[in-house]
């Protein structure tokens, strides 16, 4: 067989492809370079990080910025010592607060979302709209009463105050996401369980929820990220390392005039890693949830 060479009659410059790839590369750089810069800085010595012209790659890579959070050296203690000291605690606090928020949310939202996906009831539309409406209430509008309320109950600077407030933020979204996921679970499963004379709770626990698990995970991740990233309420409600979350401490670095850029960058990177890892791990489910609900406000 002779080789079949497809000779185009007229060579056409593939403009569409070229434009597409140029745009794709430009966007990729736009999305990744800013973040790359703080990651690179976090592995530099301060001298290299503030050099002119800048070093784009750490020339003398070091872990001292990260290790400094555990054992700050003298220079680090001098500049921004308090924020450095608070960083490990704040990471722990953020982890506890965000995880608790995710769990509490899941419990409350599962009940509500189930009712919207399986039961026909009067007022369901209004209720669903009310949930959405509470999401629209700006945090700043409830922060003062919330602060006074927490002060009255002696809950300032505690995990509970943060968990409660973040739960109210995340609950409407979680309900919306879950109701969509629950609808996609086939009803026949529950009916089969009912025929087997399983009670409602038993049916939920051992039949319905396992099938809906991916949706539950996505909703939990949403709630976790909401809690992890929140700043304004944490700024009002916390004051010491007992409850300060990582955004509050990271902001302390930024507002401190003689902060080292490298330490600030490292704290920033540490604050991004958990939500980033979750976002990448659950990419598809999150994108689905975001698109379906369109409710992250």
């Amino acid at each position, binding site marked *: 067989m002779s080789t079949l060479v497809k000779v185009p009659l007229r060579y056409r410059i593939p403009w569409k492809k070229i434009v597409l790839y140029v745009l794709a590369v430009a966007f990729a750089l736009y999305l990744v370079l800013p973040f790359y810069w703080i990651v690179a800085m976090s592995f530099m010595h301060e001298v290299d990080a503030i050099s002119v012209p800048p070093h784009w790659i750490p020339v003398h890579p070091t872990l001292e910025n990260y290790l400094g959070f555990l054992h700050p050296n003298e220079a680090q203690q001098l500049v921004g010592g308090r924020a450095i000291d608070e960083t490990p605690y704040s990471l722990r606090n953020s982890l506890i607060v965000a995880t608790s928020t995710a769990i509490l949310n899941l419990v409350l939202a599962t009940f509500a979302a189930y009712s919207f996906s399986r039961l026909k009831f009067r007022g369901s539309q209004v209720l669903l709209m009310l949930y959405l409406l509470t999401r629209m209430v700006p945090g700043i509008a409830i922060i003062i009463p919330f602060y006074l309320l927490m002060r009255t109950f002696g809950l300032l600077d505690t995990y509970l105050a943060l968990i409660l407030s973040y739960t109210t933020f995340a609950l409407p979204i979680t309900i919306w996401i879950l109701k969509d996921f629950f609808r996609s679970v086939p009803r026949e499963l529950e009916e089969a369980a009912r025929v087997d004379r399983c009670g409602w709770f038993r049916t939920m626990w051992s039949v319905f929820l396992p099938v809906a698990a991916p949706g539950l995970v996505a909703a939990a991740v949403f709630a976790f990220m909401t809690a992890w990233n929140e700043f304004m309420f944490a700024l009002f409600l916390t004051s010491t390392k007992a409850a300060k979350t990582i955004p509050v401490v990271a902001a302390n670095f930024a507002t401190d005039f003689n902060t080292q850029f490298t330490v600030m960058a490292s704290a920033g990177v540490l*604050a991004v890693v958990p939500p980033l890892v979750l976002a990448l791990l659950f990419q598809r489910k999150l994108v689905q949830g975001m698109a379906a609900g369109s409710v992250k406000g």
Partner: protein
Amino acid sequence: MAVLAERRPLGDNAKAWALNAPAMIVIALLVAYPIAYSFWVSLQKNNLKRPRAKEFIGFANYQALLSDHAFLSALKVSALFVVVVLGLTVVLALILALVLNEQFRGRGLLLSLALLPWAMPGVVNGLMWRTIFDAKTGALNGLLTQLGLIDEYHAWLTSGTGAFLFTALAQVWNTLPFSVIILLAGLSTIPSELYDAATVDRAGAVQRFVQVTLPWLLHPLLIVLILETMNAFRAFDTIYVLTGGGPGDATTTIALLDVQTVLTFTDFGLGSAYAWVITAITLLISVGYIGLLYRKGNFEV
């Protein structure tokens, strides 16, 4: 049989409300009550540092807003901020979504990268851009100098206009992915036959975009407009860290002013009045949003 059919809806009703009770109690206690209470506080002279001077003053706090320079300036800054951020976000998000809607090598990677800004806490976004925009050592200065675009390092954030624009850019980077995802979801619902038909009709790329893509994207675009308006209007984290509202009050948005009033001056009465103005504006926007969802039928239960 007839009895069962009649009884079931009733049972559903009770069951549904019971299932919603926990969420409703939490929301009533932690959102509805505070928001009502904050209205009550906004009608008071209420400063934490002067607890004895607390008194009911009706709408005096609101009246004061009309001649409150800080408030009027913040309102203006917020409005401008919304316009700039929204304009940039929509244009960039639309282009990125159109790119991601095509098939090409590395598409998955680009989609993952697009989630990066979304995962980033606003505070970190602020401090990241601070290191980039820095006048003496920033990456932006370094890059532009090395590319030969500028001769010497500039202090990007010291002029009012500069600070405002660069803050808006930082905000756009952070909020872009959300819009991209909504638009991408919208794009993926467009039937490919429509494009085929348009191609047969010898419609050019621009024509195809205007006649096929845009009409289909109208609804997702509206959602993006509304949600991003709300986001930009309440923007706080990034601005707080990047400029702290300065220089002067060039980047002091209404949210920033409110937090300063409450946190620094502990003026809870005035702060609540600010907050209620923000709430009123936001609610107006969200009523539009919910109406839109309703009409489009996304709201069936």
